[in-house]
């Protein structure tokens, strides 16, 4: 586990979106990616709040670049997964895989 510790579920989703988008990972695209791929509603504020935590944990890093007229000249903030972030994602995936391995879920049998 990296220095940031536990990786929350939504954090995983956001970080995976960043990884998928590669060079195109900035706020609007990340939000769209989450909506289209995960089928989840996400507000842009929630996405940034999560990204801020990921940066704080050292799993992602941010770079501001100037934006064009299509966004009123406002800056774009691009994100990239750090090596620690990659390790954290892999750890999370491995953990799930280990916990699922050989497991068959049974329905809950309650006594009448």
């Amino acid at each position, binding site marked *: 586990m990296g220095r940031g510790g536990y990786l929350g579920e939504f954090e995983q989703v956001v970080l995976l979106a960043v990884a998928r988008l590669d060079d195109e990972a900035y706020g609007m695209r990340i939000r769209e990616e989450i909506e289209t791929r995960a089928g989840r509603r996400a507000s842009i*504020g929630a996405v*940034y709040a999560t990204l801020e935590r990921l940066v704080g944990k050292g799993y992602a890093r941010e770079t501001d670049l100037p934006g064009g007229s*299509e966004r009123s000249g406002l800056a774009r903030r691009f994100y990239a997964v750090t090596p620690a972030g990659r390790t954290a994602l892999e750890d999370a995936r491995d953990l799930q895989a280990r916990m699922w391995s050989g497991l068959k879920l049974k329905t809950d049998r309650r006594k009448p």
Partner: protein
Amino acid sequence: MTPPRLPRALLRLAAPAHDRAVIVGDLDEEFRARAARSSTGARAWYWRQAAASVPPALGLRVRRAAPFGDLSGDLRVALRTLRRQPGFAAAAILTMALGAGMTTGVVSIVEAVLIRPLPYANESRVFVVYESDGVRRGGGFSWADYVDLSSLRSFSALAAFNGGSRTLTGFGAAERLPAAYVTPRFLAVLGVSPALGRDFGAADGVRGAPSVVILSDRAWRRRFNADPAVVGRTVTLSGEASTIIGVLPASFIFPPRADPELWMPLRPSPQQESRPYLHFIDVLGVLAPGVTPAMAADELRTRGRQWQTAAKWHETTSLRTTSMRDEMVGSVTPTLYVLLGASVLVLLTAAANVAGLVLVRAAARTREVAVRSALGATRFRLARQLLVEATCLGAAGSALGLLLGAWGLATFAAAMPQRLRAGLPHADQLAVSPRAAALGALLTIAALAAASLWPAFRAARSSAPLVTGARATSSRADARVRGVLVASQVALALVLLAGAVLVGRSVLNLSRVSPGFAIDGLVSGRVSLPPARYGSGEAMVTVVDRLLDAARAVPGVSGAEVINQLPLTGRGNTGDFAIVGRDSTPPSDPLIRDVTPGYFALMGTPLVEGRPLRPSDRKGSQRVVVVNRSLARFYFPNGGALGQRIVFGFFDGKPEWTIVGVVGDEQFDSLDRPMVPVVYFPFAQDPDDSFSLVVRAAAPDAAIAPLRGAVTSVDPDLPLYGISTLSRMAADSRAMFLRAIVTRLLLWFAIAALALAGVGIYGILAETIAARTREIGLRVALGATRAGIVRLVMRAGLAPAGIGLAAGAVIAAVASPAIRSLLYGVSPLDPSSLAAVLAVIAVVSLLACAIPVRRALRVPVATALRQD
């Protein structure tokens, strides 16, 4: 198509500055993309996005602003918080600056003088050898002693040195330059090589060899423009043509002889070589490989015992050795330690004071901290935020302290008398050392961090106020801690003030010590006659008469006389004598002085009995001397000194001298020393080629320039040097200066500490009253008297003050031996001084209580009861 204005403005408002542009930009961008398909859909979408984003944006703002984020965030918050409380920030920064500045300054001095290496390759193995009679150091060695010492096996090489001065002529104005005379291996013993040219060789130490000189770096730069071709040139030194053979490195210093500018070979005269009682040189040596200082000390003890039985003048001799460093700084080390101790006390006081401030503030911030804690800040994060604030204050405090330290150091260096500065290693290069600055900053930040830890720890547990809605007040534990802090400030203030008062009284006592003559209005300068022109005694007497006539002709001068070594400038020449008609004379090593006839009248030294010296006491007439009262009492306790004849071993032919007068004691050494026996010879019967011209003038400072002219009018190659009023010499003496500077510093720090303690007491009381307004109102309503209320309130302030006073008195008593060496005429536990200090602090404590108590007495009952 533009995004809807209202939600956009709301979002902008909610988002922290750092994220505002990118969030709004993202929404704008997607809005435009969606609006291309459907404008109404896009607007609805924008509204939903903005509404859903405001809460996380607010959360983001809290996190960015609060101490949950990165350190730079912490820093921003800290700076903003401090900006909002400028009073607190200024008080804490100034207080810490005081502590840091003092520490930085004193540590810089200690580092320069006591720690920085001496520029000798053999520094750790060079030791000074000296004679001691157990009470004080003797006056060096004779040549025969030095030759005898060179057989010591503990030292692989010995060197002898003494000092004097030479007049450089033929280079513009004649100038008297301090000179050192050293045996040829002197520099090799220290482990120093000239930067230019060569070292002395054995041949240079032989009498009659061509005169040679090695220049100090300063003389080389100042008088010879740092010309590398100076080596090999010939200069005239006191009328003697001397070849410059080398220049010393710029780093070379030799404080025992106050950094001479000319270094010349020591060539003992036939008299110096043949008279084993003529003590005129100091000796240092480099330890042989494998020899420890203790082994050398042992061998010297043994040799000293051999000397005691071998010669009469060695009856009380014991031989000692000390390191070069101790030789140079031994006399100021206790003073420096006192200052170091004082600076630590000031730093502690400052830390205690700031800790108190931090506590008050922490109490006021309980709610804020609780909110943050509830929002998810961990104990570590909260502590970190407070520590970052402490570090900000500490950094600002130590930066200001650095300036204060540099200023204080410059002031100290400027105030330091030249003689003292030249006698201490590196004292002429006093500056804030990087190590001292780092140490000051480190101590300051550490003290502040420690002061902040308690509130941080407390903050971590304080979620209660949020839950209960309690107002911000300090807890009982806080009150206890603040009580302890105020008590320790009072204690430290007492220690500092006691030190200041005791040393200050010593200064006062010393300034009241009569030097034995009327010091006001006296001016003196030194003259050295070049032997080439004034070789004979007659020539010396003649030129002195002409110099005195010229000096007496200066307007405003009421008298001028000559003495070979001035009072207050050290022991100088001494010599034992035998009393004619007695079998044995107890040795007392009286000082030997040569004076012109009107000397006693000029100085205002009283004639006790007999007659003073007269102009008729000249060569060829009866040999006479005047002695001082101490000598008369020592040798003739029942009176009858007049008419006694005495014989000195150092005069050729051992003539008899008749005592014709007894005068009052003059202090020749430091003012804090006892008076010693002195014999005064008529200058005309025992002339000297180097002497002080003493003048009494109505306006002493105004007389200096014309006096200089008067001397040059007699001989243009005779510079008058080392000119000073005698009052200034007394004030600049080591005995006075060190005590005066310590008094001044301790007093400043005591006042600062006392002010801080007073503010602390005031703070506690004000807080107590604020917290107990309701109780006070109740008591008044129930019929409590004014005196009762006063007692109730004062107890809160006076209890810590009382504890502080008691603790301070104990600390002062325990620490008193540390300043014993600085005291004169006052005991370290002087009851009246300590009582005065206690009274001052008690008064300050009462004053600090007065304002809050007045406020308590004016609490309107109804208001108090309505509170809450």
